[in-house]
């Protein structure tokens, strides 16, 4: 039996110079990933990072694991093939809001649907970084970018809703500026069986600086972020004095101090409730609600690679392991002398 070596963060740092702009949120994502990996209990050589193209997609070069820097938008498809061929590997996808949601949107939703064992980290900076600042499908309406000098008229995706709508079994959100939280979420994603989708709010300080300030800055975040914890009511605020309750199906903020509502009135998070998951994901689209972060949804469902293996086993049991020689000679054949 092999034992897994005891790793440190260093073991996951490759020898390549990290080439993001100083101050870029990508550094934190890299650091947290490198910090978390020693704890996952996966042999380093069993880990593969697959990416597309974008600033975020440079990620694999910096991880001292196997790495595959693909072409724009195709990371999920490449990774799917790899995972199906090699279910023993731990396959991670590092992608951007352009790479994963624009050109790569189809592979993304199909990976979710199939519940293939990929861990997809979406570096959402609401901009195309590498190509120097055009809008992305997560850019805000009205956002002025290089390709929308008069403001963006596209309505953005909500990545969590999209993943849920595509039948994802694990959906989470975290932030570049909250290292501890990100570490927890990455660990949860690693532990999930099937497609795990993590949206990471990532600041592009060059082309979209401050996009997530409200939810990352010291003085505003407590009042604008609600951290989801399974089984716990949705409470937030600097003084833990606010909560989220449902009005019909629509979440709303209530005060826990004005006597009208108590903790008992609040939504209690249940990771396994797919309908609640949609409600929580949808909060990003409603003004004045705090932004939920954490694991929004997590259920177990047979993975694609498990189903494939069962089918292989089943067929092999019924029909024995295939013998090509016999196959070729099966059915109508005849001898020429």
């Amino acid at each position: 039996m092999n034992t897994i070596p005891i790793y440190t963060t260093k073991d996951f740092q490759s020898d390549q110079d990290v080439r993001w702009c100083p101050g870029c949120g990508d550094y934190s994502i890299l650091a947290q990933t490198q910090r978390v990996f020693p704890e996952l209990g996966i042999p380093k050589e069993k880990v593969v990072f697959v990416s597309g193209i974008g600033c975020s997609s440079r990620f694999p070069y910096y991880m001292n694991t196997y790495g595959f820097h693909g072409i724009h938008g195709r990371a999920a498809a490449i990774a799917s093939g790899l995972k199906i061929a090699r279910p023993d590997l731990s396959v991670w996808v590092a992608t951007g809001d352009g790479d994963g949601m624009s050109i790569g949107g189809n592979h993304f939703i199909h990976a979710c649907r199939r519940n293939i064992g990929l861990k997809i980290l979406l570096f959402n900076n609401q901009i195309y970084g590498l190509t120097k600042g055009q809008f992305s499908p997560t850019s805000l309406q009205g956002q002025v970018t290089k390709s929308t000098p008069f403001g963006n008229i596209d309505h953005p995706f909500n990545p969590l809703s999209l993943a849920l709508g595509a039948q994802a079994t694990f959906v989470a959100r975290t932030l570049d500026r909250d290292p501890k939280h990100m570490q927890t979420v990455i660990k949860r994603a690693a532990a999930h069986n099937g497609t795990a989708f993590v949206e990471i709010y990532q600041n592009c300080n060059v082309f979209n600086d401050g996009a997530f300030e409200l939810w990352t800055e010291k003085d505003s975040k407590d009042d604008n972020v609600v951290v989801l914890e399974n089984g716990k009511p949705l409470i937030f605020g600097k003084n833990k004095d606010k909560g989220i309750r449902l009005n019909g199906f629509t979440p709303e903020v209530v005060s826990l101090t004005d006597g009208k509502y108590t903790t008992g009135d609040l939504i209690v998070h249940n990771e396994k409730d797919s309908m609640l998951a949609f409600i929580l994901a949808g909060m990003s689209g409603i003004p004045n609600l705090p932004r939920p972060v954490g694991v929004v949804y997590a259920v177990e469902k047979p993975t694609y690679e498990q189903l494939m293996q069962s089918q292989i086993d089943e067929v092999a049991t019924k029909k024995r392991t295939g013998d090509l020689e016999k196959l070729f000679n099966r059915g109508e054949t005849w001898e020429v002398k």
Partner: protein
Amino acid sequence: MNKITKNIDEVTIRFAGDSGDGMQLTGGQFTTATAFVGNDLATMPDYPAEIRAPAGSLAGVSSFQINFGATEIRTPGDKSDCLVVMNPAALKVYLKNLREGGSIIANADNFADKNLRLAGYESNPLQNDSLGRYQVYAVEISKLTQNALKDLNLSPKIVDRTKNFFALGLTYWMYNRPMEPTLKWIREKFAGKEDIIEANTRVLKAGHAYGETTEIFTVRFEVAPAQLPPGRYRSITGNEATAWGLMAAAKRANLELFLGSYPITPASEILQELSKYKNYGVKTFQAEDEIAGITSAIGASYGGALGATNTSGPGLALKTEAMGLAVMLELPLVIIDVQRGGPSTGLPTKTEQADLLQAVYGRNGEAPIPVFAACSPTDCFDTTFEASRIALKYMTPVIVLTDGYIANGAEPWLIPKISELPDLSPTFVTNPEGFAPYKRDPQTLARMWAIPGTPGLEHRIGGLEKENITGNISYDPDNHHLMITTRGEKINNITNDIPLAKVVGDESGDLLVVSWGSTYGAVHNAVETKRNEGLSVSHLHLKYINPLQKNIGEILSNFKQILVPEINLGQLIKILRDKYLVDAVGFNLVRGLPFSAVEIEEKIDEMIKRG
């Protein structure tokens, strides 16, 4: 009755009827019986256009052609000698493919008003004299079938469904084929349904007896067994052979086979065939589109499988960008393009050879990929196996071109012994010492292959230009030039690894006809005919389109004229003219159909005359 038996060398029969008339089954059974007597053969189904049309309509006609003989058979036949038609539409569609003086066996019962109208006949061709140039046998097949089954108490629908066996029995009699294989098949296929077995058996025999006893048939034909290499044979279509070629290659490479695919006519059967073999180390992945088909296969190759993807022209177009990635990554990958009529959606169910330039040149940047072409259904096996060999040995994607004609066509295949096929096992690096992802084998220039899961060899690859040896990203100008030329050289090196080309006929002379892909059979036959007539003409067939074999230039230089027939507007010819500066002449008919030998023969005559 006095029946004459004529000995003939070669016959072509076409069974044609409505989509619901079971013509493919009939043809298949005729094929089995023909193989059984030891003739060489080739077959070709012709399906209606993609969407099923109303019964009896021209668009709904389905047919199956078989060419068999006592000598080597290379095509499913140009014109048919005998046309079996179950309705007027079938006659209308295929009469032009019947040779003058050929026989027509028609189900007279179906030549009634409505069907005649649907086929666009104003009057019944069986009854007017429009078919004077042919030998017409108007047989009341439906009625005779009903008669044969009268006492069985079957529903009229079921009775009607057996009528193709009547036609089959009749042709068995005419061409002296044994009924036993079909009778056996009926017993196995319908095991448990005794009434159906009985019905089909009776009708088959009734058809046979009809030939034997009625007066209208006076001649039957005898086709002697062919001299085929000894061994065990089976019938195989091009698409089956392609699928099996991949399986055999993976087996001999000791790798799992991974097919990333998206359905498209006429390539879907390869996916469908391989999806049956879960227990053979074959994984098929029906992806969301062609791009995911190829990129998933690249991912699988990266993981150490034999990655493959299959498609037709429009799908190949979509895979273009990813092919460039495979070139950059230098990973093995087999890309199968079953060509069909283009451009765009074009003629999806028809054949064409117009993807050659796309396969050779259709990528951004300098992205050389070997391109091999199969020339017949069984050659699909060999070509796919050979493509896998080169892909694994040279760490490169390889494109295999087949086309709708050979993909759907079938011929007898001498079943190989798996253990006697070449060993294709790659060497996975496991020793970290001296490892660098772009370190190359000095002879082949193939790079080292280390797969995920190997401790100590963790490394990163990608589509950006990479530094020689280390594989790190490099923007250095000279390195770029070096890598571009190295990748080119690697592909050119393959010429050292493939056999020299062989001319059929004299090594020099007045005219050389150069073919590639599925035109092989027609060209071969035409050149043979013309050589027998004493013309100075030879034949060169190219399986290797890129790189070309070493001796092609020399061969071309030995002929006064060069003719390149292609089912496109001239594609291979561009490469030959560019590379060898020879004034080759193209012969181009783009009609969604294979060439007939006669067309080539006429062109040969014209060229020779012109001198």
